[in-house]
């Protein structure tokens, strides 16, 4: 069945088209604005609010917006440390762990998935078995083992998260490669003299990117949650303030004081929400079926 003839002469590259689409997507724009705010806080917040998140500023577990402790507007934790300072100073390491772990996840997953999907045959089978091996292990458990082995520090935590969470990206990439590999323009590129390396990285990968970008955006959120989970279990880096660490450290006092746990929890919630909104927006923008006619 034919839809009405598509109008011709839409300007711009497919990527530009997608970005234009994104700019018209309300929730995605909200997500981008939220991400920009959070990144701004992470980047310049510590300069504007130079309170040491480790120093004790008031009585332990002072409630937020309390008239007796104006020096700690979000209240204090079980040691009397400023929660607002923790949120602001913890933003940068939290985001870095999330971004770095997501990047690592995507790099490992895409590389393995691309090779498996492109070459097929026994290479595909071997890489699939490897992926399944990582998939059957409980990721949190594996990450805990890795973190304990290498002693908890931000880089090892990020690397551990990357090592345990790449299988999803691998399967996605492999699927896209299997689909695109058999399209005529790949045959055409081969006929035009492209070597395998070019076919993988320059012909197929760019066309496989849209779903990968979406999944990468969502992986940032998942990684932040993962780091929080590890910190909650006491496997965070004790020398670096992160939102996860704040939740982990104060969890025993939750029944007496909700704020030392809930405020960093809300910060994580909004961060994950914002990347999810962006991810959904990217999904719509790259999905040609939803493009305006």
């Amino acid at each position: 069945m034919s839809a009405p003839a598509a109008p011709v002469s839409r300007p711009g590259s497919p990527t530009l088209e997608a970005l234009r689409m994104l700019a018209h997507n309300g929730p995605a724009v909200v997500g981008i604005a939220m991400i920009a705010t959070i990144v701004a806080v992470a980047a310049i917040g510590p300069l504007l609010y130079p309170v040491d998140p480790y120093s004790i500023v008031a009585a332990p577990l002072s409630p937020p917006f309390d008239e007796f402790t104006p020096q700690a507007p979000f209240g204090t934790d079980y040691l009397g440390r400023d929660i607002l300072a923790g949120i602001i100073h913890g933003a940068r390491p939290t985001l870095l762990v999330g971004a770095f772990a997501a990047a690592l996840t995507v790099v490992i997953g895409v590389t393995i998935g691309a090779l498996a999907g492109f070459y097929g045959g026994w290479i595909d089978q071997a890489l699939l078995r490897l992926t399944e091996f990582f998939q059957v292990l409980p990721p949190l458990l594996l990450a805990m083992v890795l973190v304990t082995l290498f002693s908890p520090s931000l880089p090892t935590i990020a690397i551990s998260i990357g090592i345990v969470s790449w299988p999803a990206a691998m399967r996605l990439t492999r699927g896209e490669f299997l689909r695109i590999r058999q399209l005529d323009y790949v045959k055409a590129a081969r006929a035009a003299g492209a070597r395998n390396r070019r076919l993988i990285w320059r012909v197929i990968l760019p066309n496989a990117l849209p779903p990968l970008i979406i999944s990468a955006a969502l992986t940032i959120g998942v990684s932040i949650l993962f780091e929080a989970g590890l910190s909650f279990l006491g496997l965070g880096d004790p020398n670096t303030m992160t939102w996860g660490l704040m939740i982990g450290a104060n969890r025993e006092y939750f029944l007496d004081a909700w704020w030392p746990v809930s405020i960093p929890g809300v910060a994580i919630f909004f961060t994950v929400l914002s990347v999810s909104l962006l991810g959904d927006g990217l999904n719509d923008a790259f999905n040609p079926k939803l493009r305006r006619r």
Partner: protein
Amino acid sequence: MSADPILEVSNLTVHFQNRRSNPFAPHTTVHAVDDVSFSLPRGSTLGIVGESGSGKTTAALAVMRLGPITAGSVKLAGTEIAGLKGEELRLVRRKMQVIFQDPYSSLNPRMRAGQIVREPMDLLDVYDRSERADRVAELFAAVGLRPEQESLFPHQFSGGQRQRIGIARALATDPEIIVCDEPVSALDVAIQAQTLNLLRRLQKTFGYSYLFISHDLGVVQYVCDEIAVMYLGQIVEHAVQVDLFRRPLHPYTWALMSAVPSANLAEARQRRVLLTGDPPNPIDPPDACRFAERCPFAEEICRKTAPPLRAVANGRKVACHLVSDDGEAPQHREGLEGP
């Protein structure tokens, strides 16, 4: 036939092993292309026609070395290319290019039209770097696209224009042979005519040799000098255009022609359906005539031995036990002259 074939294919065979449904199931083999031989004289067009499952596209991809080859020889301008690998195979692609069926999936959506046409020259190092931009402009003009369209992306073109980009890309390295795999079957009729005329004009001007794959007898008749008819992986008849269409010998060719709808009313109203059922799959075919099951004239011998492709009258070739050496086919004997 010219003495100097640009392409010579001998005993080309492509088999696929079917995946077994369980470890105890027997292996089945798809005989996609079975012992196919043909040659293409320089500067002419050889058509390969057949229905789905005939193996015409598999054969074309094998010749282009874009698909697997199980056995056989493919000689391009006298050089054996069936066994080439790696860099040698890559560089021989200068001499052979392909035009694909679907103008929507054959162009990389992330490249601009000009880049698409230029890519083969860059990758195969044909023409001087400084000449390539001019060459792209020349090709755009040759296929009837405007120079400013070089910077557009594929989705900004209509189907017919996209096929022109595909044709320009195939011409970029000045190949010796161009395989056209159903180049117009995805296009509207008015655009089909434009594209077919373009292919013919280009051949006239630059002397290209075409291997033309199609299911459409009308299209094949219009562009081809010689035609090979394939059925279930084998060539059943091979003749020059006039002979084939004036007097098809193989019962399959004859039945195929009779099934083509005609815009000539007198012909249209007297058409008869001569074949029933769909063409079967070429899975483990018996050692007999593969058309025997559907053939209205099949005799005992047809179900026992496979007829070889042999020369009959006028240098045409046919693979049928029932066609006599002087070119009399069963349909003529039964008085069923011409479809």
